[in-house]
């Protein structure tokens, strides 16, 4: 879960890393005015949105005096930056600096380790700049500054800057570990003319799976219910989420709509991807992606079937899963057939193919035969089943 810049800066401050003294403003420009009465100009005005590249997208501005500040507040509050609505701004004194650096700690999945990354080319184009150095940071041992000193020295840092930067990096690593981050990045960390190191921007992502042990952060930042990914859900996708959470038995989630005419009831994770690709490969147009698994109840499958068929452009549905052991084939078959019957439609017409082999398949297949639904067993692969669904022909009945 990504934190807002001001939340990240609060964590930095708590860890002892210097940040500009900012003020948070929200609501309308008129509301915001009074809290900024004592601003020291020039100031930076920074949109608090959960996306990178804010500078390039016009989400960060500078103001030399109160009039300019007021104009920027009016322009930014309520505007959209890269598709994200700006509700809050961080106003802070503009920091003069001589040099910019990049400091990051994240996980390297291939190395299966935490890694520290440093670059002397901090700033907005650090991704292109290259020339970064990195080192694995063990988590099992207590944090130790020498690893960062070695890394920074290898990048050519010397003297007071080396010592100061080692301190900041060690604190950042502590923050990363203590808060269960999956990314803690300062870009840029600047060196001021007075020789101070100040974090001007920060990007922190927390591990969603570790939030349970950070009740303080969840409460302080109001993380409960914040969407893990910022993608806007369609009404149908939200309805699918409601169906999924209304019944704890099994999973029928992660519905994503597409503009096609073939509804998909597919699962599990890997097989869903395989089936979706196969439908497209054979010229079919999927109306959706989804994942069913973990032995969903008849009710859940039934409701999802009805939901898919409620879309006027969805002509038929294909039901495809990998060979199942946990999910019961007969329960899924009953759910799909029941959903179609409740809509007053004919399962034989509406189901393009039912291909779920595995546990309780005999019961499932016999139900499908009863309603004349085309089905396929384990001798028919996922892509062959997808082809049958697209061709509208094939399968036993």
């Amino acid at each position, binding site marked *: 879960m990504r934190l807002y810049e001001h939340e990240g800066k609060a964590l930095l401050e708590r860890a002892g890393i210097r940040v500009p003294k900012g003020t948070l403003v929200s609501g309308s420009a008129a509301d915001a005015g009074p809290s900024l009465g004592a601003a020291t100009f020039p100031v930076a005005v920074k949109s608090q949105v959960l996306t990178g590249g804010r500078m390039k997208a016009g989400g960060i501005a500078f103001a030399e005096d109160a009039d300019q500040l007021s104009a920027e507040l009016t322009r930014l509050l309520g505007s959209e930056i890269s598709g994200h609505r700006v509700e809050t701004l961080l106003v802070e004194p503009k920091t003069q600096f001589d040099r910019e650096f990049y400091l990051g700690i994240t*996980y390297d999945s291939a190395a299966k380790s935490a890694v520290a990354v440093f670059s002397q080319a901090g700033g907005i184009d650090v991704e292109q700049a290259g020339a970064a150095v990195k080192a694995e940071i063990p988590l099992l041992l207590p944090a130790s500054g020498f690893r960062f000193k070695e890394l920074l020295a290898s990048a050519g840092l010397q003297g007071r800057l080396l010592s100061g930067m080692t301190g900041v990096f060690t604190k950042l690593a502590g923050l990363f570990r203590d808060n269960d981050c999956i990314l803690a990045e300062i870009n840029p960390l600047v060196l001021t003319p007075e020789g101070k190191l100040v974090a001007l921007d920060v990007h922190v992502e927390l591990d969603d799976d570790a939030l349970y*042990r950070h009740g303080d952060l969840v409460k302080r930042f109001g993380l409960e219910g914040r969407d893990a990914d910022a993608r806007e859900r369609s009404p149908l996708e939200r309805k699918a989420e409601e169906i999924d959470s209304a019944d704890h038995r099994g999973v029928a989630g992660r519905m994503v709509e597409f503009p096609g005419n073939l509804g998909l009831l597919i699962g599990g994770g*890997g*097989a869903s*991807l395989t089936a979706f690709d196969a439908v497209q490969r054979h010229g079919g147009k999927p109306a959706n*992606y989804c994942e069913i*698994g973990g032995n969903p109840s008849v009710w859940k499958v039934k409701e999802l079937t009805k939901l898919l068929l409620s879309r006027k452009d969805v002509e038929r549905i294909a039901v495809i899963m990998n*060979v199942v052991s946990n999910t019961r084939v007969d329960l899924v078959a009953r759910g799909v057939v029941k959903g179609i019957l409740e809509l007053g439609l004919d399962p034989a017409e509406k189901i393009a193919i039912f291909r779920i082999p595995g546990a309780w398949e005999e019961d499932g297949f016999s139900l499908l035969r009863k309603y004349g639904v085309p089905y396929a067993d384990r001798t028919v692969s996922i892509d062959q089943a997808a082809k049958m669904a697209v061709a509208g022909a094939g399968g036993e009945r």
Partner: protein
Amino acid sequence: MAILVDKDTSIIVQGITGREAASFTKDSLDYGARIVGGVTPGKGGQEVFGLPVTDTVRELTERFPVDATIISVPPPFVKDAAFEAIENGIRLLLVVTERVPRRDVVEIVELCRLRGARMIGPNSLGVISPGKSRLGMVGGPAEDVRKSYVPGNVGVMSRSGGMTTEIANLLTVNGLGQSTCVSVGGDPIVGSQFADLIDVFEADAETHALVLFTEPGGAMESALAARLRERPSRLPLFIFIAGKFVDQMRGVRFGHAATLVQSEADTTEAKARILSEAGVTVVEELSALPGLVKEALNG
């Protein structure tokens, strides 16, 4: 001799009294796995399917030689369970639990390195050497396992648990048996990746070809490609990469926790390119897989 798990592999289950664990313990015993006991703190002295339940791993390792453990405990307890197993001398850990905090996973990996242990998972359905034994729940109840998996010479590694069985089944219905099949786990960081396990398959006289299933996201494929560029494999390698449509949908997570395209390197296209350059046959259509494997085995 099968790799990772064989008919003589002595296994314990941590969290054995849990609903899911009890169920796969029963299925695994039916299939012939040598499970010797289980651990659930606070339930020492009970029995599950005639197996002793203890409070600590040590009570079992003092009574039996233990080669492997299956960890099926809630996410907050996985790290401690894994540490307990490793510190009591167990050298193969299968972690079934999903949603384990990433820091805990990395700390387990680090302790494994220090002690010479291996972790499969987290979020793995298990490892199976058909006809011999199984670690975990891949394939389900014994009678279902026997339908999908038969002994043979093709190894399988998959980032998806369900597709591990699907691919074994596809091979089986086309007359190709399997040596060992591994569900490596669908999380962003797993203890054993393709590049870690390929050595084990290469060292196995019973494995004559290796089939991989993968998805968008993660760095497992680039690590494998690097290994193959450095040291080509003696085995014919095949990979099926699902989720081509995800290439166009950056930032949206599909399927497993690791299935997310954030940069060019995460796409199926990039993975197909680097693996194909490293000598792996990229299979475009799943149903073409058995034919390609047969050709390589008979060629």
